[in-house]
């Protein structure tokens, strides 16, 4: 069960009571007292989220998912298929208009219910999905359309079929194609950004993260399993991984955070989605004047400097092994 959903229960009840009372008599003392209590409760629950609570927030069943963002665009027309093997429903892609701007959108799509989650493979993309993404990145380059991505996945699909069709190659090819792209790229981390499966569509000129989204080298469960052989220690791993938006802004791995309402994006989904789209539009406006070469050079430098540390006192050519 989702931690946040658990905690919200009392709050949601109380909020309903306040609404009901307010309808009867908005000025009553009882309403005012309860309103203050709601406020306190909210701050109490959501004021200082731990990393593990953020992970739960990012996985909240009511959190806006890719389709909510797509629905809020001026217009969206889905394009399908990798032209070779399959259309992967875990990755939605297509032409869109965002504030009148023509763009190519790539999005990892979870389901709202079990049935859709099965169809969407819980947002875990298969090689075909990455190959569709790659094809459309190239089309965007060809047509001069900026690329906008929505990242929301625990990680790339780890199934037999995905290994048989080279998940590794599919992800590497996406990274290569984003490196080559001659158009602006804006990536958003809207929920979970898990591992290479997320990065495959997040190598970008500008990376925007929802305040309570998480973005990490591995899912906390995966990290705990790898390091300690025990995925139940995920909360502890989350603590270590520095996967929150604030952490990542500090490291220069993301460029911008879109604040969420206290209690999470789902508490004002339409408002939050709108702010996210406006933030994307703003980033695109900033990148629009840049030439293809300038974009690619800046993109190279952006990633080039992450983790570059040279002990300048040491020798450059250290040793000759004979």
């Amino acid at each position, binding site marked *: 069960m989702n931690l946040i959903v658990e905690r919200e229960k009392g709050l949601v009840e109380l909020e309903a009571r306040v609404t009901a009372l307010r309808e009867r008599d908005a000025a009553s003392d009882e309403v005012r007292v309860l309103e203050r209590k709601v406020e306190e409760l909210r701050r109490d629950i959501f004021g200082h989220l731990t990393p593990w609570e953020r992970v739960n927030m990012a996985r909240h069943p009511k959190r806006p998912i890719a389709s909510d963002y797509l629905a809020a665009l001026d217009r969206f027309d889905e394009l399908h298929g990798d032209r070779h093997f399959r259309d992967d429903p875990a990755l939605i892609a297509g032409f869109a208009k965002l504030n009148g701007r023509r763009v190519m959108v790539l999005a990892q799509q979870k389901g709202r219910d079990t049935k859709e989650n099965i169809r969407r493979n819980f947002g875990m993309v298969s090689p075909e999905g990455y190959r569709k993404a790659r094809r459309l990145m190239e089309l965007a380059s060809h047509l001069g359309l900026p690329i906008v991505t929505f990242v929301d996945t625990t990680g790339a699909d*780890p*199934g*037999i079929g*995905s*290994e*048989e069709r*080279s*998940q*590794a*190659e599919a*992800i*590497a*090819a996406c*990274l*290569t194609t984003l*490196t*080559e792209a001659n158009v602006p790229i804006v990536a958003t981390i809207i929920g979970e950004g898990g*591992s*290479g499966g997320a*990065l*495959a569509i997040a*190598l970008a000129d500008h990376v925007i993260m929802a305040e309570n989204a998480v*973005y*990490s*080298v*591995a899912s906390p469960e*995966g*990290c705990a*399993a*790898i*390091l*300690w052989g025990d995925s139940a220690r995920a909360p*502890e*791993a989350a603590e*270590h*991984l*520095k*996967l929150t938006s604030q952490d*990542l802004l500090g*490291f220069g*791995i993301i460029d911008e955070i879109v604040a969420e309402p206290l209690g999470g994006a789902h508490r004002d989904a339409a408002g939050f989605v709108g702010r996210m789209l406006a933030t994307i539009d703003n980033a695109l406006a900033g990148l629009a004047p840049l030439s293809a070469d300038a974009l690619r050079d800046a993109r*190279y430098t952006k*990633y*080039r400097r*992450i*983790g*570059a*540390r*040279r*002990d*300048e006192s*040491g*020798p*450059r*050519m*250290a*040793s*000759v*092994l*004979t």
Partner: protein
Amino acid sequence: MPVPEWLRLRRDKNVQAEDASLWEKCPKCNEMLYRKDLGASQWVCPRCGYHFRMHAYDRINSLVDGDFVEIGTDILPTDPLGWVDKRPYKAKLDRDREKSKLSEAVVTGFATLDGFPVALGVMDFNFRGGTMGTVVGERITNLLEEARRRRLPCIVFTASGGARMEEGMLALMQMAKTTQAVQRFMADGNLFMTVLTDPTTGGVSASFAFQADLIVAEARAAIGFAGRRVIEQTIRQKLPDNFQTAEFLLEKGHVDMVVDRRELRETLVRLLDYAVDRSRLTPTLKAVPEFALQ
């Protein structure tokens, strides 16, 4: 972390991990093997052909004509996240350094192979399971940039459990960094080759390993994206034995060829001979360390 180890390494060509015992048991045929013999046979069991994981310097020694000029030794790990679990990350690094006689999970530099000057990167599973953190990413990137400047072919031997957890997202970003470096390198018409050795998984396979012009897999190596255990847990059944082996990948079309380690050097030289116009190499590029120190 200055360089004293390297000086020692120069003298001992077959340096191995901390276990200093004289004998090694072949995990496939159970033969007891004299370590010195194993070193001489490139860590391949002379009885059954089992490929032991190989130390980076052993690997380099088994390949290069003469000198190997190492670069990037001044790129050294820090502890960017301040990670402490059972032990602090820094202590883990110290232990692996001691145990493996390596400063990090990849060794990079220049050498010649049968006269072909190449930029060479060799990962080593003995250091943090060959995981890619900022140092691996930076050394690989640095190698590709230096090779690009000199228009040299570049060969990287991979051996990796994936991204290094203890460096968090900084580790994941090395996938982006190395991929970009490979793309720039190849866009100039240079040759990039990878040799996938046991094991090659996760962030390394999903970046430069599978991005190469030519991908050679070492016989019987385990290669894939997701780890075997993760997949088994996901599908809740045992995987077939050959799943994610080099031979399986060859059949599935993922690698150009599978090569027995004993024929690897010869194969790489042959591939270089096809892919690189030997006559166009300038004389200064033909000798090491002159060209490397330019």
